[in-house]
């Protein structure tokens, strides 16, 4: 009870006017990797926010910085990665300023958890699945006893649709889809408010993929989880998310709710990406591709990073970087063509 008062107090102290605060707010996040050939501008000046029980899709081609955002949110970047600028606030905590042990207790797994890419291979093959999840729980919530943790695992397994008795198995005894489910159970073990799923569909067959996506949407509604789905597959986002951000070469080029982005994409890259995705049921149309390939982030193009591949490129695009402006409520775009 006292704890609740304290949180309420600190909340009110920070928001004297009782202003609405999103669950997660990322402001001007910039992450570089230092390499021998110079810094790689993996993520540059990115801002977005997520409300409670909202799902956001983060789409883009490989190497555009999607996973780096996930790693920055949890501050688990590799040794050469560094958040150069920006603020990441989860509730009233600023993740960029926290110390390692605070992060472990208050953010990782208890606040934000991550389902890694290729979840099938993210489990340790020589430990029982149960022991791996117990370890995850007790690292982040040291006061939990082993028995309690095991009870929690049984409940989690039931929730994700695996027979609880299978918790004692080793990962190789699980099929791909079951391993993915076990990873989801593990990610939910400490009751996080935000779940990041990095490429949840790849490496799974269509039918199993549909089962996993359905599970994620169900969990979102049941636990009012906020979710970030990172994928290159726009159709996965259109089926699971409320809003979506399109990334290109380390920047968000367009952000808005799924419906308006699919129906009225404004940025030429978004338009290209959407038309590059064949729709199974739609009329047979000619597939359109975007010429060229994504740039090297060691030395990104000047001005708008998309200009070398853009069919609408003008002189200004080469020189000046377009601002990320709000076109209509909640719909942001960074392109010189828009709002002229």
């Amino acid at each position, binding site marked *: 009870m006292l704890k609740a008062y304290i949180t309420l107090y600190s909340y009110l102290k920070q928001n004297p006017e009782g202003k609405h605060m999103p669950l997660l707010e990322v402001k001007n996040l910039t992450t570089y990797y230092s390499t021998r050939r110079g810094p790689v501008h993996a993520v540059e000046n990115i801002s977005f926010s997520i409300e409670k029980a909202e799902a956001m899709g983060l789409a883009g081609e490989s190497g555009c910085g999607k996973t780096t955002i996930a790693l920055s949110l949890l501050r688990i970047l590799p040794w050469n990665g560094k958040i150069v600028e920006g603020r990441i606030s989860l509730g009233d905590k600023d993740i960029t300023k926290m110390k390692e042990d605070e992060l472990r207790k208050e953010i990782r797994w208890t606040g934000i958890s991550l389902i890694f890419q290729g979840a099938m291979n993210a489990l340790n093959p020589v430990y029982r699945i149960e022991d791996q999840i117990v370890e995850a729980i007790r690292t982040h919530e040291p006061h939990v006893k082993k028995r309690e943790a095991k009870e929690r695992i049984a409940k989690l397994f039931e929730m994700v649709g695996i027979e609880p008795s299978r918790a004692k198995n080793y990962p190789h005894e699980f099929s791909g889809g079951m391993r993915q489910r076990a990873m989801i159970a593990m990610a939910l073990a400490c009751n996080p408010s935000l779940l990041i799923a990095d490429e949840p569909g790849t490496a799974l067959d269509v039918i199993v993929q549909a089962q996993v996506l359905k599970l994620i949407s169900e969990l979102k509604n049941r636990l009012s989880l906020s979710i970030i789905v990172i994928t290159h597959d726009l159709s996965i986002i*259109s089926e699971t998310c409320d809003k979506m951000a399109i990334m290109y070469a380390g920047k968000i080029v367009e952000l808005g709710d799924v419906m308006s982005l699919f129906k009225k994409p404004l940025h030429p890259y978004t338009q290209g990406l959407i038309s590059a995705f064949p729709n*199974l049921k739609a009329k047979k149309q000619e597939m359109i591709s975007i010429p060229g390939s994504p740039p090297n982030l060691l030395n990104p193009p000047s001005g708008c990073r998309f200009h070398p591949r853009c069919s609408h490129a003008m002189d200004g695009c080469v020189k000046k970087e377009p601002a990320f402006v709000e076109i209509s409520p909640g719909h942001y775009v960074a392109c010189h063509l828009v709002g002229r």
Partner: protein
Amino acid sequence: MEETIIRAENIKKWFPIKTGFFSSLFSRREISVRAVDGINLEIRKGEILGLAGESGSGKTTTGRILVRLIEPTSGKIFFKNNDITHLDESGMKPLRQHMQIVFQDPYESLNPRMTVGDIVSEPLKVLGAAKNELEIEKKVYTVLEDAELSPPQEFIFRYPHELSGGQRQRVATARAFVLNPEFVVADEPVSMLDVSIRAEILKLMLSLVQKYQTAFLYITHDLALARHICDRIAIMYLGKIMEQGTNEQIVFEPLHPYTRALIAAVPIPDPSSKRIDVVIKGEIPSPVNPPSGCRFHTRCPSYIGNICREAEPPLLDMGNRHLVTCHLYDSKVKS
């Protein structure tokens, strides 16, 4: 009607599993993975057949058998009505220039120590398909232009590491088409590429198929792509073809319960059709010990009783070359 280029009759490929010394002493039973277990298909001149299915259903093995990279355990393969099932290497060599393959991974299927010119001209040299250096050069230049690697003189001296993924797959495609083959297998040619460049590689393959009137087998797990580039689609499950028909038949009038489930599971990039329904549960069983009767009966939502478990369903022609293997459509079972 166009001429049939390649035809497979009831081909099977069982890969034996090595058992340990002791278990081989005590058990006589040979264990094998039934990768391909009795399939029939034919591809006509200029026709694109898509072979779709989950991983482990035997798509790649089928492709490799058809170009005779693997010899089938049983069954027959006909290339323009000639039986090529048991031809030896010297017998196959003159046929090799008529059947080519494009592999999945352009990062591993090109020799990193050869230049693009060497890679594309090698098949011509090995198979003696060109009379002299001049002809080789001419053919290589033409096919590189066809593959939109232009200007060719700039590309022939480059090494694979200097090319992007899309360009590498163009080189692999050029290598397959330089011999002007009559039959080409493309094994998931775009699954390793970025979304934005997939379409152009596929368009390139389509234009080459049209130009050279090749019979084309396109192996994929992505039904949405198959729908847009293929003439016909065959759906594979655990080493068997469940349904075969034109892409419109497969997508809009699927007959087999498995095809229906597969079509329903493909995510649609259109937010106004919010729909996630998964009709079938579980995952593909092991091909070492496939279910008896119809292989799909363990997961089938329209299971109709013992017959599915006991008898293997016959191949039924529903008209217009729409073939399905399911008891539901067997008139004998109905009555």
